[in-house]
């Protein structure tokens, strides 16, 4: 117990890594919509029992990646998908049973009741009637939908519809769950319930791929984060690692007295690569705080501006995310 040093820690970590078996391995995913490349040569690997979050701004290619992975969109020739080390690129239908998919917007049959939707899904997966009923009731109880089982799906609120989506995705007990922005638009209580449920599913051994806009969500539940922008993965690390990598990066917040002219504002935005404006503060990430602070001081003097408040703080994951997206967009030439 006491005999532990850095080397043994490293070795045990490597051994742990060696034990990890791959649940999903995708290579060279590409999707074009006419002249627009929505997913551009995306490759990643997800290990069994991991929760991996795909983060990115709207239109980054998150949902398209999921649609390629789940067989909604046809794969291009050089793309390949392996599930539990089995190449299933050519036989999409056979592996679909491994996936439980929770979409962003409910895609259950709106004129069916909750119970009819579950019965339909169970039947499609070839389960006997008794098993469907038993499993459906268990899931409805777990997700607090048992008293709504005879309600029409279209009569449910967004939160309840999302719970039904979880029930439908889990009905056939898939080892892999794919959640497409599962908490988007839900009230805070429903979000909390969903997140706890996702963590519970991880404990049950499920491998989970989740797309989200929500940094807090990614930080709370994900083991690893893939950040996507313009159809490409620009970062693939654990939330802690990403923050560690940007430890030297600070976030500078400042407030300027008075109203800026458009020209002044544009120059300010371009000079300091402002990532957002929040409560009258301009916010930007800085790799060299001292240099940037002196630049800001000079800028205010040259433009006769009065900086009324000024703060330097550690960069949050959200700011890292915005920083990475901006940096990627600039490097592409946007």
């Amino acid at each position, binding site marked *: 117990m006491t005999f532990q040093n850095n080397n043994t820690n490293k070795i045990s970590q490597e051994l742990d890594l060696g034990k990890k078996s791959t649940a999903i391995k995708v290579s060279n995913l590409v999707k074009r919509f006419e002249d627009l490349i929505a997913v551009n040569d995306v490759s990643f690997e997800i290990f069994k029992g991991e929760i991996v979050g795909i983060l990115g701004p709207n239109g980054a290619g998150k949902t398209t990646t999921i649609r390629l992975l*789940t067989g909604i969109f046809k794969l291009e020739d050089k793309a390949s998908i392996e599930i539990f080390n089995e190449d299933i690129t050519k036989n999409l239908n056979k592996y679909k049973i491994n996936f439980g998919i929770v979409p962003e917007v409910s895609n259950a049959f709106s004129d069916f009741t909750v119970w009819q939707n579950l019965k339909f899904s169970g039947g*499609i997966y070839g389960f006997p009637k008794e098993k469907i009923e038993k499993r459906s009731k268990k899931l409805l109880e777990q997700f607090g939908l048992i008293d709504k089982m005879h309600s029409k799906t279209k009569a449910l609120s967004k939160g309840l519809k999302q719970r039904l989506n979880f029930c439908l995705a889990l009905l056939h007990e898939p080892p892999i769950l794919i959640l497409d922005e599962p908490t988007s638009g839900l009230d805070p209580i429903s979000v909390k319930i969903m997140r706890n449920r996702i963590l519970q599913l991880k404990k049950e051994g499920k491998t989970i791929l989740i797309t989200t806009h929500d940094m807090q969500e990614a930080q709370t539940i994900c083991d690893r984060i893939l950040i996507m922008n313009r159809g490409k993965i620009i970062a693939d690390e654990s939330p802690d690692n990403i923050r560690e990598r940007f430890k030297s990066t600070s976030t500078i917040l400042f407030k300027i007295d008075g109203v800026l002219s458009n020209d002044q504002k544009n120059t300010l935005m371009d000079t300091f690569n402002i990532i957002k404006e929040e409560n009258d503060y301009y916010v930007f990430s800085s790799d060299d705080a001292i240099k940037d602070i002196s630049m800001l001081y000079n800028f205010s003097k040259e433009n006769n501006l009065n900086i009324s408040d000024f703060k330097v703080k550690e960069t949050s994951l959200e700011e890292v995310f915005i920083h990475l997206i901006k940096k990627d967009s600039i490097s592409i030439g946007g």
Partner: protein
Amino acid sequence: MITDGLNRIWILSKKNISLYIKRGPVLIFGLMFPFFMTLSWVIGRDISINHVFIGIVSMTSFFTATAIAPVVLPIETREKSLERILVSPISLNEILLGIIIASTLYSLIITSIITIIFILMFSIVFLSISIIFLMFLGICLMSILGSLLGLLAAANPTDRTSDVMLIVNLIKFPLLFISGIFIPLQNLPSNLLFLSFFSPITFLVDLLRFCVDGSNFFTYQVDIIMLLIWIVVLFIVGYMLHKRTMPKRLAETGKKKKMMMMKKKMEVMSKK
């Protein structure tokens, strides 16, 4: 494996029947249209009861069979339930067969009820049991054929039912008018008679004429073979079209918004 596939097709058919038979377009184009068309054709005219019977049975069979298929795919595309079906282990064949069976059963049940009521009400006499069998065979084939025709029109990758219904009606009415329902084939001018060979309803009407009063133009064997040929052709063409348009259907409806979003974003960035 085959049993699993058949089970899935049956589950899909049951879903289609229970979800779509009460939809507005199905009721309007499947039931109201043939009813009012028959009324406007019959009222004030001296038409024999046998002739009316042939017209009603043909129109009901054709209209009801073409009513469900155009509704299913656009609605499921719009409500995204098609995506839900496609991420489960279901093939395109199974989805299409589920629609064909639902549509055929709907047409068969409605047409059979109308036929039996009409036979009982107006005491229509058939020469033998085999003639009755032949008549129901014709109705069965027309139900399948109509379903396939509706499915063919539904290959248009849209999420609006009206788009598909427009195509179906554009095909349906000309086929109906040259089919020999309103004017017997014997009385058609030669150019229209030639065109009538390209309407599948012609062969059902002719088969019914053989069964009811023997005023048929072709032999009943020709009628059945032609109906079968139409079924095979429509199935192959429909399947190929759906296979081609399904990715477009999923891509276009699902990505329209995101593409617009991305293009806008790129425009803003390039301006910067």
